């Protein structure tokens, strides 16, 4: 029996994410079967569940398909230069310490062109939540080889298969010092939402990698089917092992995808270390940056 989905009703009831999205920009730019929209949905849902003051949340993206995420979330949103989302976010956080600053961007952006910023922000334990959407390729420019393209996978600039070793991102983040490191796929919508929510409660450099399908480029170039087939692959090949050694999280072409929260520990953030250190050394002479920003009202 076919039941109508009552489109008349749907038009009058708001989608639950409406308050968190720039609905005047929907439909978004992402292709059919792309996983980025799902990650945005999970991110928005986690924000809602966390109960934090959304007026104080900023979202920063770089360039690329995942770089467009900041443009769809109804937060203070910054669509910055390619690779520079993390340093831009660093400025936001240090300039107004009371903000919750999040970074949503892609693998090419954050660990290709922006790789240096990524490891240093993790090393400093800057108080940033970084959600990296990994589709194994440069999507917006047409499927070129990226820092995460698995060995032997085809890309438009490795037409005979990739011979470069890709990054194992959880391992990279953990070894750079990130106190919260997780990986999910865009199929793990509940765990991803919960993980983002959990990370929002933590502090320091929190890193969540989300493996997501790129049907139009990565999957097509590798003859791996469409988005839903990719989601089935995640269903079959994702293995959840919380607390696993991030060193074991490398992704082979069509191999297992190790998921879970790999690192969840406490480490003082950049600002905590700064405050503590200057407090010890300078005592009462130390004037911390005001939480709402520096010298806004004059003398």
């Amino acid at each position: 029996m076919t039941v109508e989905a009552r489109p008349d009703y749907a038009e009058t009831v708001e989608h639950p994410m409406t308050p968190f999205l720039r609905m005047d920009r929907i439909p978004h730019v992402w292709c059919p079967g792309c996983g980025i929209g799902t990650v945005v949905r999970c991110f928005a849902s986690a924000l809602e569940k966390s109960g934090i003051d959304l007026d104080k949340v900023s979202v920063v993206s770089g360039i690329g398909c995942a770089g467009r995420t900041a443009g769809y979330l109804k937060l203070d949103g910054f669509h910055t230069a390619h690779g520079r989302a993390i340093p831009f976010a660093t400025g936001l956080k240090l300039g107004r310490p009371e903000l919750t600053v999040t970074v949503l961007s892609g693998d090419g952006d954050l660990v290709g062109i922006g790789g240096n910023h990524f490891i240093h922000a993790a090393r400093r334990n800057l108080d940033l939540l970084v959600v990296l959407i990994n589709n194994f390729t440069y999507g917006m420019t047409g499927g070129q080889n990226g820092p995460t393209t698995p060995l032997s996978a085809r890309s438009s600039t490795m037409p005979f298969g990739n011979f470069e070793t890709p990054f194992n991102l959880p391992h990279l983040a953990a070894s750079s010092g990130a106190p919260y490191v997780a990986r999910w796929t865009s199929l793990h919508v509940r765990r991803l939402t919960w993980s983002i929510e959990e990370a929002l409660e933590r502090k320091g450099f929190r890193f969540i990698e989300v493996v997501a399908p790129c049907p139009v480029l990565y999957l097509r170039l590798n003859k791996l089917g469409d988005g839903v087939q990719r989601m089935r692959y995640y269903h079959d090949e994702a293995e959840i092992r919380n607390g696993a050694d991030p060193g074991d999280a490398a992704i082979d072409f069509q191999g297992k995808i190790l998921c879970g929260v790999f690192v969840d520990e406490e480490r003082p953030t950049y600002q905590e270390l700064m405050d503590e250190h200057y407090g010890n050394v300078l005592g009462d002479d130390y004037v911390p940056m005001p939480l709402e920003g520096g010298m806004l009202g004059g003398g």
Partner: protein
Amino acid sequence: MSTFWRRPLDADRVRPPHGEVLILADRCKGCEFCVEFCPKDVLAMSKDFNRKGYHPPEVVKSGVCMACNLCETICPEFAIFTTTTPESPPAAALPAPVLEGVAP
């Protein structure tokens, strides 16, 4: 299959939520995620085209949606969601659940 399924002791009292699926058909890009992963197989791809030329999903099983929200959460297009309707019968009155296609 159902012989392996332990019947909850409070099945006669607990009223499982009953959901209604709402589809914003014109937003859909036809990725099929919702159809593929609905644990109750409520949805199928429609033969109709939406304004963009994609086949949106349609509800093919009435009364079985439990408002688990998976379709809403997995939809990359913000094109589908569920609402809970109060008039659910007790779980005991529902057909025995099937194990296949458990939500990830």
